[in-house]
C-alpha cells in the first residue's frame, strides 16, 4: 500500500488542465488512487464472467478475446433499455456547470473528474460506434476508437465517482453522472473487471446475507454483544429476536451497524428505542444486510441482493419493514426495490403501532425509514428524551448523498437531532441538504488501498466540518449512513482531528429515558456524560 501524503501536501491542487487533450493522456495507475482487482472466487460464486487473477497495474488485463464486441453489444443493449443513458449521451452542451461540483474534481484538479468529462469517456465511444457523424468524422466530433487504454481509463475514473449525484443537481439538463458511472461499471463488469472491495461484499451478501459474511450464529453473538453493552450503560436488558415468524415488523439495518465501531452504538440506539416502545419486531439473519453493493455493480446484481428483503418479509409473515440508517441502501429501497422485486403483496400499508400514523409515502414499497418512524414517535410524545445527556457533544449533521438527492430526506433527521441534543450547528449551506458533499468513499470506494483518493474526495466535506469546528467548536459529526460511519472517522482524523462520528440513533440512545433504567453516567460509548467533552474552546 502506498504511503499517504500529509494534508498540506495533498491540498496543493492544480486546477489548470494540462496542455494535452484528455484523449491523448493515458491513465497512470498511481498507488493509493485505485482499487484492487476482484478475486476470481467471488466472481465464480456469483456466476459473473471472466473470473481470473489480474491487477490494474499490470499491462495485460486478461480480457476475453472478443472483448470489444462484448462491450459494444452491452452498450447497445443499455442504450435500448435506459432512456437516461441514451438521452445523456446526446444532450450535454458542455457548459461546464458541473465541473467544480464534483468532490473528486475539487480534491484532485484532474479534468477527467469533471462530471462532463467522466461522461465524455463513454460519449466518445458512443459517438464513434452509434452515431453517423462519429463514424464518419471521428475525433472532430469527439469520437474515438475503443481500445484497451479506454477500458483502463474507464476503470480508473468510473471507480473515482461515488455516484453521489451532486453534479446532477446543478446540471441544466439533469444529466446524472451516477447513471453514467453505473453504465460504465456494468460494461466493465461484462469483461469481469470489478474491484475486490465491491465484489467481495456482494458475494458475501449473496450467500451469507451480509457484506462481511457474518454467519447466523455469529450475527446473533454480535447483536448479543450490543445487548450486553446496553445493559452495562442502562441496567436494562433488551431482548431482540431473530428470524421470528409472526412479528409485526421486520427490521433491517446495514450490517456495518452490527459489527463495526462506531456503527454498533447506532445499533444499540435502535435496540433501546424498540425495547422502550415495546415494538413487536424481529431481526433476520438471512436478510441481515440493508446495504446493497449491487448498486455499485450492476442493476441485475442489485436486484439479486435486494430480493431477500421482500422474500424474508413474506416468509416471516410480517406486516411491513423498517429500515435502519444507511445511504445507498435507501437509494435502492426508495428508487429501485418496488420496481425490481415488488409488488410487495404479502405486506400491508405501514402503520406505526404506537401513534397510528399511516406512512402514506411508503404505502406501496411498505418500507419505512427509521428516522421517519422515530420523528413520528417524538412528534406524538411517545418517548421521553433528555437531550442534556448529549451535552458533551457539539453536533453538526452530514446529509448523506443518497437520502439527500434520491429522496429529499432533510427535516426528519434534523427534527430528531434537535430533540436529542442541545447543541446543533449547521455547516455552510452550500455543503448541506441537497447540496451536501459526499464523504468521498461512497459508491464502493472505501477500501484502504484507495486512501489517498478517499482523502481527496472527502476534502470538501471535511473542509465544511473544519469550518464549524473552528467557528463553534463542533466535536461530533452526526450522519444517517453506515458507509459514512465507517469512513468519516478516517477522514476527520486526516483533515479535522478531534471530530468524532456518530449515527443519529446513537444520540437517540443516549437521550432516551427508559422505564426502570439505572442513572446514566456514561454515553453509549462508555464516556462520562459531563466534563471531558466540554472541549478545548472553553
Amino acid at each position: 500500500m502506498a504511503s499517504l501524503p500529509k494534508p498540506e501536501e495533498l491540498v496543493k491542487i492544480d486546477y489548470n488542465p494540462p496542455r494535452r487533450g484528455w484523449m491523448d493522456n493515458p491513465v497512470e495507475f498511481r498507488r493509493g488512487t485505485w482499487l484492487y482487482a476482484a478475486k476470481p472466487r467471488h466472481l465464480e460464486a456469483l456466476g459473473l464472467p471472466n473470473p481470473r487473477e489480474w491487477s490494474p497495474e499490470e499491462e495485460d488485463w486478461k480480457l476475453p478475446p472478443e472483448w470489444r464486441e462484448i462491450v459494444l453489444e452491452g452498450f447497445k443493449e443499455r442504450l435500448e433499455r435506459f432512456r437516461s443513458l441514451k438521452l445523456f449521451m446526446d444532450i450535454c452542451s458542455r457548459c461546464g456547470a458541473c465541473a467544480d461540483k464534483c468532490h473528486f474534481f475539487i480534491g484532485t484538479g484532474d479534468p477527467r473528474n469533471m462530471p462532463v468529462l467522466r461522461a465524455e469517456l463513454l460519449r466518445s465511444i458512443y459517438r464513434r460506434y452509434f452515431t453517423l457523424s462519429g463514424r464518419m468524422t471521428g475525433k472532430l466530433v469527439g469520437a474515438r476508437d475503443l481500445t484497451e487504454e479506454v477500458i483502463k481509463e474507464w476503470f480508473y475514473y468510473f471507480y473515482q465517482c461515488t455516484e453521489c449525484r451532486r453534479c446532477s443537481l446543478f446540471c441544466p439538463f439533469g444529466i446524472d453522472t451516477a447513471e453514467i458511472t453505473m453504465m460504465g461499471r456494468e460494461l466493465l463488469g461484462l469483461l469481469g473487471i470489478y474491484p475486490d472491495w465491491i465484489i467481495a461484499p456482494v458475494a458475501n451478501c449473496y450467500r451469507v446475507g451480509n457484506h462481511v459474511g457474518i454467519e447466523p450464529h455469529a450475527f446473533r453473538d454480535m447483536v448479543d454483544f450490543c445487548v450486553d453493552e446496553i445493559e452495562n450503560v442502562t441496567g436494562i436488558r433488551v431482548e431482540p429476536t431473530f428470524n421470528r415468524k409472526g412479528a409485526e415488523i421486520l427490521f433491517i439495518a446495514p450490517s456495518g451497524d452490527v459489527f463495526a465501531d462506531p456503527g454498533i452504538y447506532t445499533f444499540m440506539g435502535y435496540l433501546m428505542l424498540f425495547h422502550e416502545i415495546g415494538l413487536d419486531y424481529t431481526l433476520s439473519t438471512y436478510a441481515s444486510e440493508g446495504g446493497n453493493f449491487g448498486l455499485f455493480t450492476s442493476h441485475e446484481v442489485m436486484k439479486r441482493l435486494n430480493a431477500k428483503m421482500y422474500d424474508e418479509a413474506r416468509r416471516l409473515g410480517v406486516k411491513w419493514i423498517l429500515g435502519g440508517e444507511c445511504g445507498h441502501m435507501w437509494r435502492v429501497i426508495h428508487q429501485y426495490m418496488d420496481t425490481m422485486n415488488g409488488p410487495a403483496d404479502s405486506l400491508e400499508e405501514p402503520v406505526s403501532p404506537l401513534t397510528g400514523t399511516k406512512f402514506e409515502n411508503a404505502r406501496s414499497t411498505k418500507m419505512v425509514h427509521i428516522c421517519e418512524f422515530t420523528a413520528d414517535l417524538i412528534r406524538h410524545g411517545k418517548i421521553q428524551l433528555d437531550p442534556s445527556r448529549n451535552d458533551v457533544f457539539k453536533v453538526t449533521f452530514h446529509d448523506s448523498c443518497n437520502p439527500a438527492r434520491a429522496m429529499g430526506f432533510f427535516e426528519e433527521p434534523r427534527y430528531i437531532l434537535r430533540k436529542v441534543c442541545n447543541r446543533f450547528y449547521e455547516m455552510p449551506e452550500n455543503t448541506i441538504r441537497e447540496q451536501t458533499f459526499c464523504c468521498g468513499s461512497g459508491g464502493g470506494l472505501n477500501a484502504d488501498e484507495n486512501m489517498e483518493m478517499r482523502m481527496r474526495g472527502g476534502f470538501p466535506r471535511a473542509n465544511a466540518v473544519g469550518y464549524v469546528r473552528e467557528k463553534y467548536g463542533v466535536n461530533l459529526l452526526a450522519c444517517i449512513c453506515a458507509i459514512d460511519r465507517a469512513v468519516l472517522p478516517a477522514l476527520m482524523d486526516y483533515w479535522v482531528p478531534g471530530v468524532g462520528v456518530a449515527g443519529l440513533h446513537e444520540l437517540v440512545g443516549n437521550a432516551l429515558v427508559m422505564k426502570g433504567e439505572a442513572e446514566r453516567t456514561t454515553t453509549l460509548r462508555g464516556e462520562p456524560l459531563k466534563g471531558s467533552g466540554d472541549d478545548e474552546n472553553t
Partner: protein
Amino acid sequence: MGVAFSLAVVGVLILAITLAVEVLGLRFLVGAVLPYVAVAVFLGGMVYRLLGWGRSPVPFRIPTTGGQQRSLPWIKPSSLDNPSSTAGVIGRMALEILLFRSLFRNTKAELHGGPHLAYHWEKWLWLGALVFHWSMLLVVIRHLRFFTDPVPSFVYWVEGIDGFLRVGLRALYLTDITLLLGVTYLLLRRFFIPQVRYISLPGDYVPLFLLLGIGLSGVLMRYFVGVDVAAVKELALGVLTFRPRIPEGIGVLFYIHWGLVCALLAYFPFSKLVHMGGIFLTPTRNLPNDSRARRHVNPWNYPVKVHTYEEYEEEFREKMKLAGIPVEKE
C-alpha cells in the same frame, strides 16, 4: 484547433453562399430550395431523435431531489424542487425550461489558503444562458412577421415591447443586442475559462459561430445596410406557401442570413442543440418522487437468480439451531 476549425466551417459557408448568389447566380437554390431541405432535415431529424429517445423506456424512477420529500404530514415538502405529484412535476419542468432552475443553483468553488474552500456567487452563466435563449425566442417570434399575412397580433405585441427604444424613427430591438451579447458571452467563456476551454469540442463552437453569423448579418441588414423588407417577405411567404419565387432587389447579405439559418436548422438534430427537445424527457427531472407510494413498472424487468432462504438454511441449519435461531426444517 476546435475554434479555428469551427470558424473556418462558418467562413466557408458564408463564402459558398456569396459565391452561389453573386457569381453563379443560384438565388433560387439558396433562397427557395435550401430552406426545404433544411426544414425537412430538421423536422425529420428531430422526430428521429425524439422517437429514438422515446423508444428506450424509463425502467426506474430516478428523480434528483432538490428539496424536502413528502413524508410525514407535519413536515412541509418542497413541492417544486422535489415534487410528489404530476402538478408539481409540471411546475418543476416549467421552472427548469423557462427559468433554468438548476443552472440558477450554480456556484463557483475556490480553494484558498488554510486550506479553505469557498463557494462564490456565480450566476453569470445562468444569466447569460437565460438572456441568450429568451432573446432567441423573441427574435424568432418577431420574425414571424415575415411568414404570416396578416401578421398575428402577438407578433406586433412582442415587437412593440422589444422595440420600445427608438433610434431616430426606427425601433431598436433590445433582443438584437441581447442575443448578440448572450452569444458573445457564451463564446468568450469557452475561450477564457480553462476548464471550459479544455472540454470544448468543435460541436460547441460551430453553433455559436453560426448564431453569431446569423445575428450579425441580421443586424447589418436592419440597421446598417438595409434590405427590401417587402421583397424578403414575399420570398418567405412564397416558400412557406410552397409557391417559391425570388423577387428582385434582395442583396447577398440576406442570402447569407437565410443560408446560415438553413445550415443551423439542418445541423440541429445532429448536434448538442437537441437539448432543446431532450430536456423535456430527462428522467431526473420529469418524474415525481413518489416511488415508495406508487410502484413504477419496468417493462423489461426479468427474473434473476437469487440465493433462497432454503439454500441458506441448508448451509447454516446446524449453526442456527445451536444459536437458538428458529429454522424451517428441524
